[in-house]
Each structure stands twice: as C-alpha cells, then as structure tokens.
C-alpha cells in the first residue's frame, strides 16, 4: 500500500490516532461530571415528588395542599416527577457516562471537544427553559404532553433544546468514531465505543418523531397567541403517533447504557469475562433494527389505527424482546465465569461467590434481577389483546418502575459508585452505606411494583390519577396500598442514602488510595468478531427501512387525512 499523505487526498496509510492527553481527559471528565451532577440534582427533586404521590395514592397523607406556594397540584408534581426522572436524570446521566466511556474505550481524544461542551450547554439551556413553565404550573401536561392539551411555548422550546443537545453529544461521538475508523481501518471497534455509538444513533432515529410533533404541531399552536397569528389547530391521533414513534425507542435509550455496563463492565467487576463478545454486538445491532418500528404497541387502545398495523408492530415488539432474551443468558454466563474464578461451585451455589461486597456490583446485579420481572411484564404489555387487561392501569407504572426505575436507575447508581470517585478523585462514602442503598432500593421496588401491578390488573385502578381524592376509591385496594407504602418507605430510605452518599463523596476531602480505572471486561474468546458485526451499513439501512415500512403507510394516511379540528386547551 502506497502512502499518500498529500493534503486534501484520502489518507490510506494507517495514521495513528492522536494521543489521549491528560489535559483532554480532564476536559472529558469535567463534561461527564457536570452531566452527572445535573442528573442527580434532577433525580433528587423527581424522587421526592414520587414519594408524595405514593403517599397520596395510599391515603397516608395528601401533602399537596401544603406545597401550593411552589407546586399547585398533584398533576404539576407528576409532570415534574416524570420529566425530571425519566427524561432529565436519564439523558444527562447517559450523556455523561457515554462521553466518559466512549473516549476511554476508543482510546482516542474527541475529534471536536468543543462539540461535547456545546452539547452540554444546549442541554442545560433546554432544561432551564422548560423548567420555568413546569415550575410555574404553565405546563402541567405530564411528560407525554398529549395534544390538544397545550402547554406554554417555553416548555416545547426547552424540550427541543434538550433533545438537540443530546443529538450533539451523539454528533461529537460520530465524528470521533469516524476519525478513529479512518485511522484504524482493519481493527474492530472496541465494544463499549461501538455500543455507545449505536445507542446514540438509535436515539437520533427515535427522536425524529417527537421532533416532528413539537416543531410542526405543538410549537405553531403554542406560539400562535404569543406571535399573534391564528393557531393552526391539531390532530390528536397524528400527534400521538409521532410521540410514540419516539416513546418506545426512548426506553431502549434508557436501557442500552445499562446493557453496556452489564455486558462490558460488570463481568470485570466480579473477575468474569465477556462470554461472547460478538453476540453482544449482534444484540446491539438488533436493538438498532427493531427498537423504533414498535410504537403502535403503545396505541393498541387507540381508535383510528387499523388492527393490522397494531398487529404488525406487535410482531416487531416481540422482535425487540428477543435481544433481551439473549442478554439474559449471555450476561449471566459472563458473571458465572467470574463467580467460578472466585471459587464458586455447583449449579446455583456459585451465585453466592459473585462480588456482592462491592456496592457497584451488587446494585447492578440487583437491577438485573428486577429487570427479569420488568421484562416479563413488558412481554405481557406487548401482547396486543392481553394489553387490554393492563393498558393505562397502575400495572403500567408498576412495570416501568422495574424497568427505567430499577434496571436503568439502580444500574446508574451502581455505575456512579465507581464513576463519581473516579471523576472526583474522592473515596466513596462509604461502601457499606452504598450497599445498604442498593438493597433498600431493590426491596423497595419489589414491594412497590408488585403492589401496583396487582392494583392495575385485578382492580383496574387507573394510572396518572390523584387516587386519594377519587370517589371510586375502594377499601379492597388496602392490602396492596399498604404493600406499596412499605415499598415506598424502603425507597425513601434508599434515595436519601444515595443523595447523602453522593454529597459526602464529593464534599469530604478523602483522597483515593489508588486510582480507579473504568472496568472493562475482556472477551472469553479473544478472536475478533466477524466483520459484519462491525459494519454499519446493513444495520443502519435496515433500521431506516424498517421504520419506513412500519410507519410510512400509516403516517402517510394520517398526514393526508389529518383534520386540525382540535384547538389547544389548558385544562389545569
């Protein structure tokens, strides 16, 4: 191969990647740390509001009358709970964690460091812009903001900026990935870098739906009175459909960062190895393929969408469940390798030899156990007509507190137990407290989610409702309400512990004894993955094709037949 280093022409030579300097890493870590700081601050408010909701549901105490100087209603609190926990906590944590892990995994500086700073700035600007109407009760539309309910324009502008900021996080990664690929044409992309990039591309495809909803439907209506033109009106079904284009892959945006940690970091935290690294790549590619063409499974109960399309999306939904089924085997096998290396024996006794003493490990393993139940519940929700038994009942919050509230959140807690000490150079305060935090979260969610599942399935108790004030409140709910409050008590202790641990870790001057490195699990079989598992075009084009096939015809009809009969209404 001839070396052509003439400027402006393609460099065929394998130019070495620029070195990763300490100064660059410091900047990357600062970006990661600030993202995680915002995430934890958001969660502290969001979690507190969750406790108030649970107490209200069980008629223990209705705290909202006392909150009225700040929070006017239960539903304003619920909007904040959903937005801060499900959007802000997750998105900021993911962007921080990925920026950190991507650079380490690729062992290459970010191509455009300023882009990652810009991304953080835009996300914070978006958060602050959206926070104003949410905190002043101008946007109590819950985090799904279904039209024709119409919030203050600043809410939509803020959300848009937050999402665009997270896109820029992705762009910074894509440019860096592309540069690395040019410099290393023959190498396999390191797993963590590849998986993180796939997740950000998935997020890019997913958010196109909600971006279209906000830009073409909600903002024109919300801005009309401000700018003095006639509101164009809106079609609620079209809006909902665009929202759910985004709404389901959103859950994979929450879940896949946890999978990155479970596959590629957690085994290393218990002396294990990646059981089959190529299969893990396949899993991520399958998520890219199947995560978006599934949105109608959130609209099984909607009018206006023919059953056949709901049925097709049901099939794809089972398709996207499949890589999670593979994960259940492969991740457990990776951990078992570790447990046996640590002297574990027997069919199941090895489980006791996992690294349970390490809070980062324990939290994530407990998150996985809760996700077994979350995953089974998800398959039930996906099951078309079976969904009629659970749709919009308390079953659903029961379900997603096991998924995003446990699989994701408890995993992020676990990650923060090594990442925050790494970023701050301070010792974790303290491993014992952190262990207690993980276990209380586990039991809290177990009780809480179990109770809510039963309330929904057996008693048809509705979700998103200020139940304590409902005239149909029934004494038959009492056993489950008590169970949920027991769960809530555990969760309150756990959340308090978490914020205290983070606060004292960051503030107390307890320097690390020895430096912490990102845990990276080595593959059991060092043979590189086949090249087709490191190649973008079939998967990316396949994902785009599936989105077009699964959404194209129905969206074409919905747009063609759109009737802007509805005007934005404020009902709070």
């Amino acid at each position, binding site marked *: 191969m001839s070396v052509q280093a003439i400027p402006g022409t393609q460099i065929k030579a394998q130019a070495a990647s620029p070195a990763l300097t300490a100064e660059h890493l410091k900047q990357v870590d600062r970006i990661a740390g600030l993202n995680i700081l915002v995430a934890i601050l958001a969660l502290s408010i969001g979690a507190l509001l969750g406790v108030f909701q649970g107490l209200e549901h069980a008629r223990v105490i209705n705290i909202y009358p006392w909150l009225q100087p700040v929070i006017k209603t239960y539903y304003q609190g619920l909007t904040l709970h959903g937005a801060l926990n499900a959007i802000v906590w997750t998105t900021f944590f993911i962007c921080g964690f990925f920026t950190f892990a991507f650079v380490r995994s690729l062992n290459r500086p970010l191509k455009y460091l300023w882009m990652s700073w810009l991304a953080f700035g835009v996300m914070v600007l978006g958060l602050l812009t959206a926070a104003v109407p949410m905190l002043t009760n101008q946007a109590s539309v819950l985090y799904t903001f*279904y039209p024709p309910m119409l919030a203050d324009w600043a809410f939509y502008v803020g959300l848009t900026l937050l999402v665009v900021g997270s896109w820029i996080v992705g762009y910074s990664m894509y440019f860096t990935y592309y540069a690395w690929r040019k410099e290393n044409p023959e190498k396999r992309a390191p797993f963590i870098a590849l998986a993180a990039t796939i997740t950000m591309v998935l997020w890019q495809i997913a958010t196109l739906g909600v971006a279209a909803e906000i830009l073409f439907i909600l903002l024109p209506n919300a801005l009309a009175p401000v700018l003095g033109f006639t509101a164009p009106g809106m079609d609620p079904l079209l809006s909902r459909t665009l929202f759910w284009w985004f709404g389901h892959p959103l859950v994979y945006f929450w879940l896949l960062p946890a999978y990155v940690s479970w596959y590629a970091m957690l085994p290393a935290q218990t002396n294990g190895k990646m059981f089959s690294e190529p*299969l893990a790549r396949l899993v991520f590619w399958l998520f890219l393929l199947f995560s978006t063409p599934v949105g109608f499974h959130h609209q099984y109960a*909607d009018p*206006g969408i023919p059953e056949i399309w709901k049925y097709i999306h*049901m099939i794809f939904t089972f398709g996207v469940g499949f890589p999670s089924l593979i994960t259940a085997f492969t991740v457990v096998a990776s951990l078992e390798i570790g447990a046996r290396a640590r002297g574990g024996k027997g069919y199941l006794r090895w489980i006791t030899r996992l690294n349970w003493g390490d809070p980062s490990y324990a939290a994530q393993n407990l998150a996985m156990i809760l996700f077994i139940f979350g995953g089974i519940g998800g398959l039930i929700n996906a099951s078309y007509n079976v969904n*009629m038994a659970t749709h919009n009942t308390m079953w659903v919050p029961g379900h997603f507190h096991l998924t995003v509230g446990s699989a994701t959140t408890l995993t992020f807690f676990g990650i923060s137990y090594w990442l925050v000490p790494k970023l701050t150079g301070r010792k974790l305060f303290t491993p014992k407290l952190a262990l207690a935090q993980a276990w209380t979260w586990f039991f809290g969610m177990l009780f809480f989610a179990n109770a809510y599942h039963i309330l929904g399935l057996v008693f048809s108790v*509705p979700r998103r*409702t200020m139940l304590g004030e409902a005239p149909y409140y029934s004494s038959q709910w009492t056993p489950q309400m008590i169970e949920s409050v027991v769960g809530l008590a555990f969760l309150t202790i756990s959340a308090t512990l978490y914020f205290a641990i983070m606060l004292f870790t960051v503030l107390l001057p307890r320097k690390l004894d020895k430096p912490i490195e990102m845990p990276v699990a080595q593959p059991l079989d060092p043979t590189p993955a*086949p090249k087709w598992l490191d190649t973008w075009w079939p998967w990316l084009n396949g994902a785009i094709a599936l989105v077009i096939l699964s959404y194209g015809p129905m969206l074409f009809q919905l747009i063609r037949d759109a009737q802007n009969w509805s005007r934005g209404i404020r009902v709070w």
Partner: protein
Amino acid sequence: MSEHEHETQHSTGGEPGAEAHEENGWLHVEKWEGVWIRVAVAMTVVFIAAITVAAMSFGITVPGATARINPMTLNDPESPFANPGIRELAPGKYEVYMVAQTWNFVPDRIEVPVGSEVTFYLTARDVIHGIKIANTNVNMMALPGQVSVLRAKFDKPGVYNYICHEYCGYVANAPIGHHTMYGQLIVTAPDNTTETVQVTQ
C-alpha cells in the same frame, strides 16, 4: 439470525474456543447459548401464535379504525353523539354512545340486564380521555376527532365502574377533575334486584 454452531467445549469458565474465525465468518455461538437462542425463538413464536388465535378465533381484539367525527359537531342534530346514551338494538343487544369530556362521561350511568351484549361507541369532546370498564376487556382511548368502538358481554350481575384512565386536567382546589371522572354500568339480575356490591374479580 445467522449462527453457526461449533460444538466446541468452552462452557462457562472453560478455555477459549480453539477454532479460529474467518474474517467474515458466521457468528460463533456456544452450545448452551445456541440452545437458549432456540428456546427464545420458540417462546416468541408461541406467544405470537397464542395472541393470534385469541384475536382471530375468540374475537378478543383491540379498537381499530372505525369512524371520525369533528368534536365541534358532537351536538349537531345528525350526530350520533347528540343524545348520548343506551339504545336497545334487539333483545339482549345494546349500543351505547358515550362522550368523554372534562370531567365526566355522558352518560355516567348505564343499566343493562345480565347476559347483554353491549357495543360501546366513544369519542372525546375536548382533550384525550380513556376508559376501562372494570373486569372487562373494554379498554380504550377517547380521542377528539375519532370514534373508539369495542363490544363486551356482561354475564355477571353487579356494578362495573368505568374510570377515566388518561390524565385530562385538574384546576387546583377544584372539587372535580380527572380523578373524579367515572361512571357506573349496572348489570341487573333477572329478578331485577341490583346487587350493591362492586364486581371486582
């Protein structure tokens, strides 16, 4: 799902697979991993089959695309929603036209004899609402501009609550709001004594 199974022994804790992969070879899948993948595929197929049979043979289905109606015209004389309520089509067969609005269902009380088959037509006047009739498979969203349709048979006497399950607003300190929005369907026994207990199971 392309996989090629090598019967190499590198089970948990074992040696790395001895076989080298070709650059563009198939994915190497360990034996038990391959078994599990097959089990996962089989489970998925069985689930989909069960759902399909339930939908096709037992008619347990979800709302589809039926009709649209301008929410501004619900009160027009020719609108089927101008006089919401229950209509008897034939002995034991009824249809209910229902409007969901902030913050009540119209009608909010329906009475049918036991054994009745009732078709529900639901639309929304203002924002999105939802309805689930307790202990039935009637669970649907009410969207402005759309008509949702589902049918249910009521074989057990009792009081069935139907509750709004999509957040539809609440003004601070008001006596009503989303959480007070519900109605009751009363299924009467042949001797015409209405049980006062709520059906829950």
